[in-house]
């Protein structure tokens, strides 16, 4: 995968925070999604049971992942689905390109898929003179704008209606300017309908792949996913290898967790279950179905018993909706495909800490993400773990790029902090000095950052140790 050599988190953050419109759009959208979710999941005990079940299903699947993937391949093959394995995103792209070449095809219609974003397949195909057309409304909008998704479920959430109206008017041929939502929808629908006729190959993601039956499940609201997977003669499904579950009976609870957490829906408008290409005598459906199973670092992540929990993710995006940091900076600031809390723990593991390790700084560890995660991924604990890895040495670093932040000044500061907090005599002198001079410290370093938005903290002349001593509170 292409390395993001120019990832400059600080610049991205400043740019995002400076955009008032973006913050207003995000806040109202996230508030809306949060209310929708809490309205649907109004029984706390029921939700807790469901999350516990979701966690158990995904953990069990991960614990037997190699076997399940083999079973999935076997079942899919029996059903007539052609299975391809891709170790890297480059491999996955090549597989897709080879299928295009076999069919002399030039036009792709795409349903929404984050793995396809991970592959950057649109740009890759474009380099080979193949047109890839996004058909999910949100993806269609950002493709017109030439932007990546800013959210994994609602990719154009950073844009409001007026911005979309201008975009359609400017980018679509002969498109009149309108701010009417129904008219904007109709314009997109008409444009896309033509593309569905032209598409020779359809590409989709996979929400759940069921090993025991070889079934690919696809969740969507617009019907474009069904169009992409049934209208063109060839369907390519791409999935990360963690998407496999063992049994069909495990799908309903995961589906309920996914739609409820993502958009507060009991069920989406469409739920597609694809188990084979068109069979003899059938009148519709693709003649060929391909499944591309992508690793891209996932099997390496699986080898760590703690960090592998990131692979439980069902991509509902609710951690973003509830994240106070995401709500303020939006998805683009995170610089890579997966933003928000889940991106913070996934991206550095895929890309390496030296590339993306700075992402783990974007958390106050408020635990809001962990509280709502439908499969109970301990996101804050994994953020902490990756912060440790950022400073780790050869003895305990395991994530690629570990130790990239190691520096003498910070190490020395924390050593000093440790010394002060483990030696009562030093602590006593230190406290006394802080009481005397703490309020007169020059505003440099950490204090400078603090006072950029707040007045300096005022330290008490006498600390609690001294007060307790004077008041005769027992020492032990």
């Amino acid at each position, binding site marked *: 995968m292409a390395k993001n050599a120019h990832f400059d988190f600080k610049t991205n953050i400043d740019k995002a925070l400076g955009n008032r419109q973006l913050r207003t759009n995000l806040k109202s959208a996230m508030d809306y999604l949060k209310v929708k979710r809490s309205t649907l999941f109004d029984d706390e005990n029921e939700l807790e049971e469901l999350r516990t079940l979701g966690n158990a299903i995904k953990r069990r699947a991960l614990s037997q992942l190699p076997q399940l993937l083999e079973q999935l391949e076997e079942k899919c093959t029996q059903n007539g689905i052609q299975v391809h394995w891709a170790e890297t995103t480059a491999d996955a792209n090549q597989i897709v390109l080879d299928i295009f070449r076999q069919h002399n095809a030039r036009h792709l219609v795409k349903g929404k898929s984050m793995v396809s974003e991970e592959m950057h397949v649109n740009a890759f195909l474009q380099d080979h003179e193949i047109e890839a057309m996004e058909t999910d409304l949100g993806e269609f909008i950002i493709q017109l704008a030439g932007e990546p998704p800013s959210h994994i479920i609602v990719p154009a959430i950073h844009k409001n209606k007026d911005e979309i109206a201008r975009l359609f008017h400017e980018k679509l041929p002969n498109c009149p300017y309108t701010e009417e939502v129904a008219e904007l929808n109709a314009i997109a629908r008409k444009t896309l309908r033509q593309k569905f006729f032209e598409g020779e190959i359809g590409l989709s993601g996979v929400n759940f792949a069921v090993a025991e039956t070889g079934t690919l499940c696809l969740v969507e609201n617009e019907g474009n996913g069904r169009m992409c997977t049934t209208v063109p003669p060839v369907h390519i499904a791409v999935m990360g290898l963690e998407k496999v579950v063992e049994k069909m009976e495990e799908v309903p609870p995961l589906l309920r967790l996914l739609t409820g957490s993502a958009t507060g829906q009991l069920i989406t408008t469409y739920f597609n279950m694809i188990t084979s290409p068109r069979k003899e005598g059938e009148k519709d459906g693709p003649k060929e179905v391909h499944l591309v199973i992508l690793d891209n670092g996932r099997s390496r992540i699986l080898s760590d018993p703690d960090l592998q929990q990131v692979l439980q993710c069902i991509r509902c995006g609710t951690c973003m909706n509830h994240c*106070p940091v995401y709500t303020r900076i939006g998805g683009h600031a995170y610089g890579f495909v997966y933003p928000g809390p889940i991106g913070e723990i996934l991206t550095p593991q895929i890309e390496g800490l030296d590339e993306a390790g700075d992402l783990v700084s974007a958390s*106050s560890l408020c635990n*809001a993400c962990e509280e709502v995660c439908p499969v109970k991924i301990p996101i804050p604990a994994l953020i902490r773990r990756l912060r440790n890895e950022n400073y780790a040495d050869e003895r305990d670093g395991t994530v690629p790029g570990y130790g990239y932040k190691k520096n003498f000044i910070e190490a020395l500061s*924390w050593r000093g902090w*440790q010394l002060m907090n483990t030696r*009562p005599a030093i602590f006593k002198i230190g406290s006394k000095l802080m009481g005397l001079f703490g309020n007169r410290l020059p505003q440099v370093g950490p204090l400078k950052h603090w006072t950029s938005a707040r007045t300096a903290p005022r330290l008490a002349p006498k*600390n609690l*140790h001294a007060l307790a001593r004077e008041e005769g*509170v027992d020492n032990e």
Partner: protein
Amino acid sequence: MRTYPEKPNKVYFFGTCLVDMAYPAAGMAGIRLIQREGVNVAFPQKQTCCGQPAYNSGFPEEAKAVAREQIRIFNKNYPIVVPSGSCAGMMRYHYPELFKNEPDIEGVKRFSERIYELTEFLVHVLKVRLDDQGHHVKVTWHSSCHALREMRVTEDSKALIRQLKKVELVELQNEKECCGFGGTFSIKRPEISAAMVRDKAEDIRQTGARIVLGGDCGCLMNISGAMEYHQIPVYQQHIAEFIWERTNG
């Protein structure tokens, strides 16, 4: 749901480093609230910090050294009361995590079992009844994320405020949202932290409250600093100090 012990004869008080340096009056008020219920309080003079700053910043070994020292100092089998949801959460839930591969993990777990957040202890163990002697005042409450989502004691803190007859509690619009403190987060990502605390200060202003109460001094320092910076005239106070002042006739 946690099961609580009978009222003990004696407790330890772990003051926390922020209370120690910036809010010692809140710490003394906490000690007095416990003493008033007829319980002896010990404040070991060798105590320092729970270790959370290093723990959250990528320095687990330094955190461990400081944590081990507290475990050693608070060695008698008394409950340990902490006037902070965040530090209490660190000692109750993160110490066992921090020491999970160490030979003394069982001792660490027994230590962690003894940790109580102050308002939780006042409500469930001491079962305090507060007699409000102050004038009418409108207040709002900010819960730290760890009091809310780790220690789960927010309702205890609010229950104490509601016992005060002349205190009107107005809840914040985005009550469950972080104030942007996050320990070293506030200096490592100062831009985002500033945007978060600015919004929190605005929410507080909109309640029309005269005082914002909190149970965690990190949040209070952050929020009050931002309110002062933006010239929002709301006074801040730790809940222990507020209760002590209103009930100590």
